[in-house]
């Protein structure tokens, strides 16, 4: 069973904001709402600057789901956390509960009036007919129903941002880390943290020292 996740490689992210732009364009996200953004630490310090791209992480035990007073959140069979905008009351509880600041609220009128919550959908639309006009208008493109992955991950020029099944992207990332010559990679990955996906699978062999990534 797929558990759709994002993974951002801070060694590769160059803060180009291509993912942010791809998301905006693909889903026609309204002005003032950023479903995805790039966060940089040690900005301007040579050698210490790191960036990662952050959006909804589609948590396995999502705090937004726990605090929602109208229970408008649901998790799809492939692990994507989505919500019903027809039910959302725009209270903002999910914004306070989310550790990633993923829920966004469009300004719906004068005096700072909040609209319905909007967040990354893993390009999986929402509870409307798949690939319909209503779904696009409320939630954006449903790329999963088109057999595609989220636009941000597929557009990433350095492939810093990976999107897909947690097991698969953890394997991709582990392979990269091995090629960089890191130690202790055999204990890294989704399966190591949350249970083996392939029982009895041998641990990957570390690359020889001095190998380039």
């Amino acid at each position: 069973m797929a558990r759709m996740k994002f993974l951002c490689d801070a060694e590769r992210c160059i803060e180009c904001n291509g993912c942010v732009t791809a998301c905006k364009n693909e889903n026609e996200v309204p002005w003032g709402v950023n479903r995805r953004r790039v966060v940089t630490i040690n900005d301007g310090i040579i050698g210490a600057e790191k960036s990662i791209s952050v959006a909804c992480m589609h948590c396995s035990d999502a705090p937004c789901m726990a605090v929602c007073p109208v229970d408008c959140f649901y998790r799809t069979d492939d692990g994507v956390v989505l919500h019903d905008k027809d039910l959302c009351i725009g209270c903002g509880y999910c914004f306070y509960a989310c550790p990633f600041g993923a829920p966004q609220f469009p300004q719906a009128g004068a005096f700072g009036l909040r609209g319905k919550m909007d967040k990354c959908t893993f390009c999986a639309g929402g509870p409307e007919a798949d690939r319909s006009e209503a779904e696009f208008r409320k939630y954006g493109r449903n790329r999963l129903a088109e057999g595609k992955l989220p636009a941000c991950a597929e557009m990433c020029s350095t492939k810093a941002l990976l999107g897909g099944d947690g097991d698969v992207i953890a394997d991709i990332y582990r392979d990269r880390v091995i090629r960089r010559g890191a130690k202790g990679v055999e204990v890294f990955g989704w399966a190591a943290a949350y249970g083996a996906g392939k029982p009895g699978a041998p641990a990957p062999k570390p690359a020889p020292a001095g190998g380039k990534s």
Partner: protein
Amino acid sequence: MKRALLLTAALAAALGLTACGESEQVVVYKQGKYQGKPDTRPWDNDPLAGGGKWTKGDRTSWETQIKERQLAQHEHKRIYQ
């Protein structure tokens, strides 16, 4: 008279001590249930022309094609370039 006074004192003591009772204050969290509209699943759609191929309604075939697409993110193991 004495009995009435004793009864009143006992009643007052009982009323006064009711606030001293210790009730359970730990909230038992109940998982909410989704109240919105049902959603369709990605594999219940027909594949688009020129895109990934899967059999409508077959989850395994959809997952197979999306996994192939995921592996395209691995520059060392791309199956098509």
